[in-house]
């Protein structure tokens, strides 16, 4: 008759029955079989049978809980709590140990939560995505999307509910005391509709705003609105001048749902359906694309479809495979800001933090293990009275659970305080980090980590403690013989593991630190102090002609150089040391050479004035610098750096020949000089990459940076810079006026933050494992009190005794180092693959870390070793 019961229902009953306390199981099974059987007999009731059977699970859980209450699991917790209170020293040590591990894990998780996981406060934000172009043959980088790609991929039916595109641009807002550079977003149609953003005040863009015939309108961010207009709602309908052009303010976007979060204002692109010619080329990747997935499409399947479509498009397009994008990719909107490296960074940090947690748990585990022999008799007694082994393990786990929960609470507090401190230092330069906070997700994760830690910590001691047979334990309770020593061996294994993991972590932290230091202290190839930098953008409306643009910058440079506190000045499209500006990457071939793959050299393209070389204090090694005669109408020329020359013409013969940027300018330029390699790039790039310099007037650009070599006082030059620029055009904003060194430091802030985190984890690991060594050696000395007493009594010197204790820890350190070096090498390989500037085998780091670890271990053993030499033979003999 049971054959009537469907298989799923039967399985539910079988699983639930396992939960029911064994005493009650037979009757419980009978009852449910009867109920289900009855239900099967009623045809109308058969439909909800599975749901009905799930009630058996609830019923079983209820009975199990009742049983646990009756059998005193709670009493176990109380008992464990009282036992911990009786040993405040042990408890405090264990709690602090676990707090370090759990705190570190919680801290990193809350960072990841803020930057990768937290959904945006937009309706159904999990369906919001961004599209990127990729080119697998050129590496993992994500590029913008071209307009034809947008049309083909994002507006195709069946995948997205809506899509739009935008371009971030910098604009100068004038009208106030001083013109100011703001971050504006030019958006395509349906931008806010796709995001689901609602206006805070006024309205957002409608189709008419995108009509070229209509007046230009602008939407403000709440932050910009509050900062510049005191959150005054009469702003609606008023005029704001962007680059001198009037725009009518029509609405405000509420702060939390502003996207991109860094935007100050949004303006509509007025393309009237057809984009201008410069956007229309498929190879021009100039747009950022957002889209909202249809409800039943997930990111993975959208990526697969978009990739297949883009492959189909590009394979037949005849576009060069070296183009920025030949494939496309869909990325969730909320994690898209971290870019392609975000996941990797957090994977690395996550591994580091998991290791710290592991060390903390091993350490606490060792502490508990040392103590658990004192409970051996209690456990044996309970086992003798019929408690099952599982039951005893749970009883012992309750202790580590209390420790882990206390440690978790403390750890969350510590992590919160530490993160706030760290963020206060780093936040201004790292957007998104300011949103790190404790919320339900983070606290939930901390709780989960604490429980995991409790199991990790308590399981080993619990299994060991309950494995001993009853009679064995009774016999051994009083004498420290075999089992005690076995337990010590287990603890030794734990310590060796801890030391090995710490060594690996410290080595990796050391390697990252070295890599960072190298970047900070690398000789840039020029004198980097007494250099001021800033950027300027000329409004297109008033500087429509190249001649006007050229005149502005030429005028600015000559006026700056005429000032007393300024020795030299140059406009440049890109500042050295990654200080900012416009970084353009172009591919070059020898003019007249054959355009074959491999023959081209990719290089950073920089426009400079003739004064650039004097300002930096660097002159060409061969050939000449630019002069005033390399003007707009003069023959096109270029200066390349050594790295470029080495790539293109290893035989030194590049001066005098012509090169051509194949995809962009497509103009033959004669190389007139070769510049020594100086550091143009900042973070995480090869220190010297190929660079091509061209005269500014031959390739005019309305957005330029300035490099100013000041006299002895940089501060005095600052007002002069403002004065000069104000004299020429008072509506042009000066942005980012700071020393080049400060700009460089800001550029490195993210890396500095990561490095600090790594160093902190390494230190934490060292402290934890050394305190573990101290605990173990102290314990083993206390176990051998009698032995030492006897040996001292029969004439052993203090040196012999101390030597023996120290030798024991030296052995542990040796084993830990041997194992740790293997881990460290593996870790270094992974790191070097993930980050630039890290050397896998850096002997000084390895030697330094090993020395540090060995010294710390011996120092931690010194106190217990001294204690061993002070054992009074009489007291020692009496103690048993």
């Amino acid at each position, binding site marked *: *008759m049971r054959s009537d019961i469907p298989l799923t229902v039967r399985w539910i009953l079988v699983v639930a029955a396992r939960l029911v306390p064994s005493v009650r199981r037979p009757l419980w099974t009978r009852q449910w079989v*009867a109920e289900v059987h009855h239900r099967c007999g009623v045809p109308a009731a058969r439909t909800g049978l599975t749901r009905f059977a799930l009630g058996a699970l609830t019923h079983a859980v209820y009975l199990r809980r009742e049983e646990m209450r009756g059998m005193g699991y709670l009493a176990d917790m109380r008992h464990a709590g009282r036992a911990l209170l009786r040993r405040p020293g042990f408890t405090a040590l264990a709690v602090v140990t676990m707090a370090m591990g759990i705190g570190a894990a919680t801290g990193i998780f809350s960072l990841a939560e803020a930057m990768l996981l937290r959904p945006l406060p937009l309706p159904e934000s999990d369906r919001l995505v961004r599209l990127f172009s990729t080119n697998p043959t050129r590496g993992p980088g994500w590029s913008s999307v071209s307009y034809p790609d947008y049309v083909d991929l994002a507006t195709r039916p069946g995948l997205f509910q809506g899509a739009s595109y935008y371009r971030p641009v910098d604009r100068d807002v004038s009208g106030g005391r001083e013109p100011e550079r703001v971050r504006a977003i030019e958006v395509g149609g349906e931008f806010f509709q796709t995001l689901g953003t609602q206006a805070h005040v006024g309205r957002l863009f409608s189709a008419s705003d995108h009509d070229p015939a209509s007046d230009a309108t602008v939407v403000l961010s709440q932050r910009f609105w509050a900062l510049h207009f005191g959150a005054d709602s009469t702003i609606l309908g008023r005029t704001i001048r962007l680059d001198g052009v009037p725009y009518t303010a029509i609405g405000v976007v509420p702060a939390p749902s502003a996207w991109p979060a860094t935007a100050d204002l949004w303006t509509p692109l007025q393309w009237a359906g057809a984009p201008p010619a410069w956007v229309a080329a498929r190879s021009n990747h100039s747009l950022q694309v957002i889209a909202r997935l249809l409800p039943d499409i997930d990111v993975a399947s959208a990526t697969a479809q978009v990739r297949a479509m883009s492959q189909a498009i590009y394979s037949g397009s005849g576009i060069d495979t070296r183009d920025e994008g030949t494939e496309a990719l869909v990325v969730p909107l909320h994690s898209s800001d971290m870019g392609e490296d975000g996941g990797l960074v957090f994977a690395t940090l996550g591994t580091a933090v998991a290791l710290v947690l592991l060390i903390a748990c091993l350490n606490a585990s060792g502490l508990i293990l040392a103590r658990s022999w004192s409970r051996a008799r209690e456990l044996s007694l309970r086992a003798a009275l019929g408690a099952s082994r599982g039951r005893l393990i749970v009883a012992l786990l309750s202790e580590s659970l209390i420790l882990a929960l206390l440690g978790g609470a403390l750890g969350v507090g510590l992590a919160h305080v530490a993160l706030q401190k760290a963020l206060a230092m780093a936040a201004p330069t790292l957007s998104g980090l300011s949103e790190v906070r404790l919320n339900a997700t983070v606290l939930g994760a901390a709780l989960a980590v604490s429980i995991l830690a409790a199991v990790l910590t308590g399981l080993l001691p619990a299994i060991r403690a309950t494995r001993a047979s009853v009679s064995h334990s009774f016999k051994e309770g009083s004498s420290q013989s075999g089992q005690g020593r076995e337990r010590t061996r287990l603890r030794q294994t734990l310590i060796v593991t801890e030391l090995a993991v710490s060594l690996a972590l410290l080595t990796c932290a050391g390697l990252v630190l070295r890599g960072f230091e190298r970047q900070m202290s690398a000789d840039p190839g020029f004198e980097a102090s007494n250099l001021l930098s800033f950027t300027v953008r000329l409004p297109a409306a008033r500087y429509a002609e190249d001649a006007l643009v050229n005149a502005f910058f030429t005028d600015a440079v000559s006026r700056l150089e005429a000032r007393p506190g300024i020795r030299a000045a140059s406009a440049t499209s890109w500042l050295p040391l990654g200080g900012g500006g416009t970084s353009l990457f172009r591919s070059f071939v020898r003019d007249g050479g054959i355009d074959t793959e491999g023959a081209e050299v990719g290089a950073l393209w920089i426009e400079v004035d003739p004064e650039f070389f004097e300002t930096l204090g660097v002159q060409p090694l061969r050939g000449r610098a630019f002069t005033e005669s390399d003007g707009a109408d003069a023959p096109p020329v270029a200066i390349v750096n050594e790295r470029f020359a080495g790539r293109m013409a290893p035989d030194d013969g590049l001066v005098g020949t012509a090169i051509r940027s194949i995809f962009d300018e497509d103009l033959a330029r004669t190389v007139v000089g070769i510049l020594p390699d100086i550091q143009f790039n900042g973070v995480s790039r090869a220190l010297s990459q190929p660079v091509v310099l061209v005269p500014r007037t031959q390739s005019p650009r309305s957005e330029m940076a300035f490099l100013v070599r000041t006299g002895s006082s940089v501060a005095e030059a600052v007002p002069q810079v403002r004065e000069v620029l104000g004299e020429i055009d008072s509506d042009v904003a000066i942005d980012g006026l700071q020393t080049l060194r400060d700009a460089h430091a800001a550029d490195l802030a993210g890396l500095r933050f990561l490095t600090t985190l790594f160093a902190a984890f390494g230190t934490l690991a060292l402290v934890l494992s050394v305190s573990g060594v101290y605990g173990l050696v102290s314990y083993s000395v206390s176990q051998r009190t009698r032995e030492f007493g006897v040996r001292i009594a029969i004439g052993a010197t203090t040196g012999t005794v101390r030597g023996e204790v120290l030798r024991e820890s030296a052995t542990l350190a040796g084993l830990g180092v041997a194992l740790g070096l293997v881990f460290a090498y593996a870790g270094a390989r992974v790191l070097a693959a993930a980050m630039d500037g890290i050397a896998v085998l850096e002997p000084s780091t390895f030697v330094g870390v090993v020395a540090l670890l060995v010294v710390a271990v011996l120092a931690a053993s010194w106190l217990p070793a001294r204690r061993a030499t002070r054992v009074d033979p009489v007291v020692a003999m009496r103690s048993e």
Partner: protein
Amino acid sequence: MAKGLPVGTVMVLHALARGHRYGFDLMEQTGFTSGTVYPALERLEQLGHARSHWEDAGVAYAEKRPPRRYFEITPEGKTVLIAALEKYRALAPLDIDGVRHPLEARPA
């Protein structure tokens, strides 16, 4: 009755008092899921408000089905149920936003 029973448990008790005797039947009467009814029965039995017995195996065998566990209300259970219902009576009909209690809305 020191502490008040949860409403769901009271409703199961109420259904027992009306003579419904086993889990599935009680589910249909109260509209609760099996996950609510069975623990509630367990609790009622523990508190002494209900008791259970197994159906005579012979009867079940004759009907070619497994014997059922039947529940019934105890005298204590009845006292508790009356006290509980008394308490719920305090919830007088109320006119909320012009919507009246269905019983009240019916023309007398």
